[in-house]
């Protein structure tokens, strides 16, 4: 047992090292913002005014800030969806597809059981969302355990199959008879809608990413399963010789990862959109992958990275409205941030914790 004073000094040292890493991270972001400012100048825009508008619009109002949180909910979920399997070096690029299938399953539940009361229906469709995403990812998990296809490839390809599958249902059997033949399902009943908090669009679904982060941290650092996962991640051969079943963890972690992304899909369809449409997600699965890699799979880093990317994505509006730039120009800023972070990662994988 280490003494209390030793524990305290260890914690303090940990905090200082952590703070240094954080400052370095902020410095990197500053570099990306600088390059973006130069690009703005090159196109004849005033970067200072643009940034002022950018931040005051996103952080300077309650609504703006709430919108960041709204975006963070699916982003954190899809990021943890990548982080969990990444602990044993599985690469899950299929968050987008898993999100869509999760939404699909949740929609089925909402449309079929629309007479159930909210305290049964809402948990039911949440479960369905998790199940849908989990099963979809499990396909890739099985292909991987059989040694047939790497999960990177299969999850990537399954994204497109998932989106097409959702299109099939939305254009066909589930099309809303009230919407002039437009490809969308009927609107969810109130019992299937995640309630919003106050006046904002932040909704009760925020408990999912919160729980996911806490559980992830807790399981990984405090439980035997976490120990086994880290063993596999560190030295798979030794882990296998010690009797740890790698195949079991591959299947389990892919399922959990997919399930989390599926929850993100359920949140989007239930709380934000209110019905299933082809344009469900603006790429949350892919952005989540980037968030997870930026953060090195570290829960706090995921929150920070998701926060940053959410600000950038939301900030695109004002750049268009006040500065005449095409909205997708914020993709450049996102990319720059990523480039800058990625160019440092070769040496060190994310924040150490």
């Amino acid at each position, binding site marked *: 047992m280490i003494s209390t004073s030793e524990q305290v000094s260890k914690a303090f040292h940990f905090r200082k090292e952590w703070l240094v890493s954080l400052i370095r991270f902020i410095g990197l972001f500053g570099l990306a913002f600088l390059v973006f400012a130069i690009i703005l100048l090159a*196109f004849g825009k005033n970067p200072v005014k643009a940034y002022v508008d950018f931040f005051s619009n996103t952080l300077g109002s309650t609504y703006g800030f709430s919108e960041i949180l709204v975006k963070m909910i699916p982003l954190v979920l899809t990021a943890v969806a990548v982080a969990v399997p*990444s602990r044993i*070096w*599985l*690469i899950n*690029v299929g968050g987008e597809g898993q999100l869509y299938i999760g939404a699909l399953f949740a929609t089925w539940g909402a449309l079929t059981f629309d007479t159930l009361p909210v305290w049964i229906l809402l948990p039911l469709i949440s479960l369905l969302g998790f199940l849908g995403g989990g099963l979809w990812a499990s396909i890739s998990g099985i*292909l991987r355990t*059989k*040694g*047939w*296809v*790497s999960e*990177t*490839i*299969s999850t*990537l*390809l*399954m994204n*497109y*199959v998932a989106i*097409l*599958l959702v*299109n*099939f249902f939305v*254009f*066909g059997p589930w099309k809303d008879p009230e919407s002039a033949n437009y490809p969308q399902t009927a609107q969810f009943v109130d019992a299937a809608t995640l309630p919003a908090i106050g006046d904002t669009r932040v909704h009760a679904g925020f408990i999912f990413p919160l729980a996911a982060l806490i559980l992830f941290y807790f399981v990984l650092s405090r439980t035997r399963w976490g120990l086994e996962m880290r063993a596999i991640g560190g030295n798979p051969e030794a882990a296998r010789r010690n009797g740890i079943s790698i195949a079991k963890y591959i299947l389990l972690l892919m399922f959990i990862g997919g399930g989390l992304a599926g929850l993100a899909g359920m949140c989007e369809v239930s709380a934000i959109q209110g019905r299933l449409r082809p344009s469900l997600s603006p790429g949350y699965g*892919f952005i989540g*992958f*980037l968030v997870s*890699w*930026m953060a090195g799979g570290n829960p706090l880093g995921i929150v920070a990275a998701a926060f940053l990317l959410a600000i950038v994505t939301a900030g695109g509006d004002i750049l268009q409205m006040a500065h005449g*730039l*095409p*909205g*997708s*120009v*914020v*993709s*450049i*800023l*996102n*990319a*720059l941030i*990523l*480039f800058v972070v*990625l*160019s*440092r*990662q*070769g040496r060190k994988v994310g924040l150490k914790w």
Partner: protein
Amino acid sequence: MVGSFLEGLLSGSILAGTPLLYATLGEVIDERAGIVNLGLEGVMLMGAVVGFTTTVETGNAAVGVFAGALAGALFNMVFGFLVIARRANQLASGLALMFCGVGLSALLGAPYIGSQIKGLNEIIILPLSDLPLVGATLFRYDILVYLVVPIAILVWWVLFYTRWGLSLRAVGENPAAAFAAGKNPYRLQYQALFIAGLLGGIAGAHLSLALTKTWAEWMTAGRGFVAVALVIFSKWHPLRAIAGALLFGGAISLQLQMQARGVPVSPFLLDMLPYLLSLGVLAVWGGARRHAAPASLGQVFRGTE
């Protein structure tokens, strides 16, 4: 009537398959060198937008194609810097490249939306184009279509019959061994990415200058990712990629052709085929297929990079 259906299907496949094939050939080259580029979509978009804007400004589509190719190559060099010099994670870098390409192409292309160009016109090779069936489908295309198969053969020949190609593949299999044997893996990988960028840029330029003769944001609509799947489907082999591109291009045009003929078909289920086929092909030939991927590429896929 069947004849005209086949004609239509074939010409649709060829037209849709050409940009796919260019992009796939590029991706085959860089994956053979051990690098996965998920940002191919962004490279194609840069080729499409620069090709289009250059053609609007100069009035010359050939100049547009060259400019698009060059833009793709330079854009890929950014990616090269990240993954070669900085040894960044290839998958994340690729995705970042894609987002950058989407945004940058939108920015560059915004003032040119709605512009008119003459574009790449069809070169009709008389009297070949008057041959029944074969004539109409095979000999009424723009120059990029005619060039794509010879270029595919050229890529195959270079990869498997030249020293450069051999060194490149050696780097893809085992960079350390290649280095020990006196090759410079970094330079070879940069060269591979440059060429891949040229081809990806041409793919994009074909889309905006020949097929549609217009520019719209994100007009590649996922074709870059289809090309990545196509590389896998063709087992990283340029000649098989020809058949694959025809097949995938066919799938894209098949559902539209069938609609035009009044055949009831679900476009979405049809559109899924290319991806399911790729997965199937990999799963069925699982063991052997795993060795078809360049070994160090496998490292990326296994996550030890």
